[in-house]
C-alpha cells in the first residue's frame, strides 16, 4: 500500500489535546533498560513513545587507526544510524548528511560529561542505532547512550538527560511527537547534565520569541529531570533484582 503522510487538520483540538491525545505538557511514555547487549561493554534500550533506540558502548579500547589517538585524552566517537526500516518509508541505508550531523551533536553532548582525561590514548566508541523513529530520536539517543556509558563503567561527571520541546502555533508543548515534529512551528532539543544543570545540547529549529524561549527552556529542564529520574532507576534496577534473588522474599532496596 502506498504510504501517504497527511497533515492533521489541527495539531491541537478545541479541547486542548494534541493529535495523540496528550495535553501540551504531557510527555510520551518512556521505558529504559540497561545491559541489553552482552557483547558490548555497555548498552541500553530506550523506548520513548514510538521510538526504539539501542545504544552500545565499546571502550575504552585501542584506537584504530593509531594516528587518531590523542595523547592527553580519550577519543570519543559516535555513530548515529537509522535502520532502513525505522521510518514510514524505507530509508536508504548508510550515513547521510543528517545522521553525520546528529553523530557530531550527540558526541558534543556526551563528551563533556565523560572524564576523557582519564583514558589517554584510548577510544570510546558510542553507537546509537535507531530501530524505530517517532520524533526526538537525538534526545532519546543521548539518553540511551548516557545510560550505556554509565553501565560500561566509564568515568563521568554525571548522566546526561535529554528532552525535546516544541511549539505549535503559540502553544509550547513538551516532547513533540511525529505529527508535531513534521508540521509544528518550532522544536528545541535540550540535553542537560542534570546534577550540575549544565546544558550540553541546545538546538532550535523554527522561530520562538524570548518569552517562549524561556518557557521552553524551563519546561525542558523539568522534562529532563523526569528523564534523569528514570535513568537513575534503570541503572539501579538490575542490582535490585539480583539482591532480591539472593536475599529473597519481598525485601527491596
Amino acid at each position, binding site marked *: 500500500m502506498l504510504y501517504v503522510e497527511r497533515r492533521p487538520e489541527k495539531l491541537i483540538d478545541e479541547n486542548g489535546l494534541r493529535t495523540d491525545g496528550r495535553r501540551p505538557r504531557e510527555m510520551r511514555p518512556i521505558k529504559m533498560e540497561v545491559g541489553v547487549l552482552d557483547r558490548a*561493554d*555497555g548498552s541500553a534500550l530506550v523506548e520513548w513513545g514510538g521510538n526504539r533506540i539501542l545504544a552500545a558502548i565499546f*571502550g*575504552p*579500547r*585501542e584506537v584504530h587507526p593509531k594516528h587518531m*589517538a590523542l*595523547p592527553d585524552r580519550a577519543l570519543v566517537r559516535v555513530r548515529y544510524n537509522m535502520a532502513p526500516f525505522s521510518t514510514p518509508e524505507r530509508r536508504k541505508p548508510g550515513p547521510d548528511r543528517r545522521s553525520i550531523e546528529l553523530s557530531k551533536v550527540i558526541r558534543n553532548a556526551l563528551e563533556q*560529561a565523560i*572524564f576523557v582525561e582519564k*583514558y*589517554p*590514548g*584510548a*577510544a570510546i566508541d558510542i553507537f546509537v542505532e535507531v530501530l524505530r523513529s517517532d520524533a526526538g530520536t537525538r534526545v532519546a539517543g543521548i539518553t540511551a547512550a548516557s545510560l550505556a556509558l*554509565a*553501565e*560500561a*563503567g*566509564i*568515568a*563521568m*561527571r*554525571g*548522566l546526561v538527560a535529554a528532552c525535546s520541546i516544541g511549539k505549535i502555533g503559540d502553544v509550547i508543548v513538551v516532547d513533540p511527537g511525529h505529527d508535531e515534529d513534521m508540521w509544528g512551528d518550532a522544536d528545541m532539543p535540550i540535553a542537560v*547534565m*542534570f*546534577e*550540575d544543570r549544565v546544558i550540553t545540547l541546545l538546538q532550535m529549529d523554527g522561530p520562538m520569541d524570548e518569552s517562549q524561549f524561556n518557557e521552553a527552556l524551563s519546561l525542558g529542564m523539568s522534562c529532563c529531570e523526569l528523564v534523569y529520574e528514570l*535513568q*537513575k532507576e534503570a*541503572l*539501579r534496577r538490575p*542490582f535490585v533484582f*539480583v*539482591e532480591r534473588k*539472593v*536475599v529473597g522474599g519481598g525485601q527491596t*532496596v
Partner: protein
Amino acid sequence: MNRSEVYVKDREIVIPGQKIAKGMTPGDNVYIDKEGFLRSALLGLASLEGNKVDVIPLASAYIPKVNDLVVGKIEKISGGTILVDINSPFTAVIVPPRNNKLGLEVGDVILAKVKAFDGMSSPLLTLEFEGLGKISGCVLLEIDPAKVPRVIGRRGSMLNILSSKTGSEILVAQNGFVVVKPRDHRSLMAIMRALEVIQEESHISGLSDRISKLLDTILAGGS
C-alpha cells in the same frame, strides 16, 4: 573546619554524578565539584571508611599500571617484539633481550610484570623477575577487572576459600585473567560457577558464606 555530611549509606549503589558527601576526603573514583560536594565518577558502590569516601566500580576495563602483575596470552610474535593480550584496551608488548630466546609461542599463557606504561604507546611487560614466565598445564578464565578485589577478598580470604575447598591452585592477576590448575573436572566447574556468582552478586553482603555453600554443594555432586 566544615562539618562533614554524608548523603548515602555504606555499600549503597551510586550513579555517576551523584552527591555522596561533603567535607570528607575523596578516594578512588570520587571527584569534588565547584561547591565542594564529593561526587561519584562511576556507577558503583559507595564505600565509607572513616573520613574517606571511595566508589568501588561495578564494571571497568583494565588500565595497566607499572608494577602490576598480569597474566597475558601471546597473540603474535613478529621480529623483535611479542604482542600479548592482557584483557585491556591496550595490547602489551615484550621485547626479548638480544640473543635470548624466551621460548614462547603464540597461545602461551604467561605471568608478567608491567615495566612501563605512559598511557599512549603499548604497555611494556617484563619477565625478568623470579617466578615470572610461561605457565603451563592450566586453564585460563576471564573475569571483569573491576571484580578482581572481590575474587581475592579481604586479605585473600575469598581466594583462600576457593583454592582450599577445591584443592586447586588459583592465580588472580590484576588484569582480570584467572589461571587455574584444577584438581579435577568437578573442582574446575565449581570454580567457574563461583567466579560467575562473585561477579554477579558482589554488591550484596555475605558473599563469602554464599560462595562457601555453593562450592560445598557443587563439590558434593549437586549443581
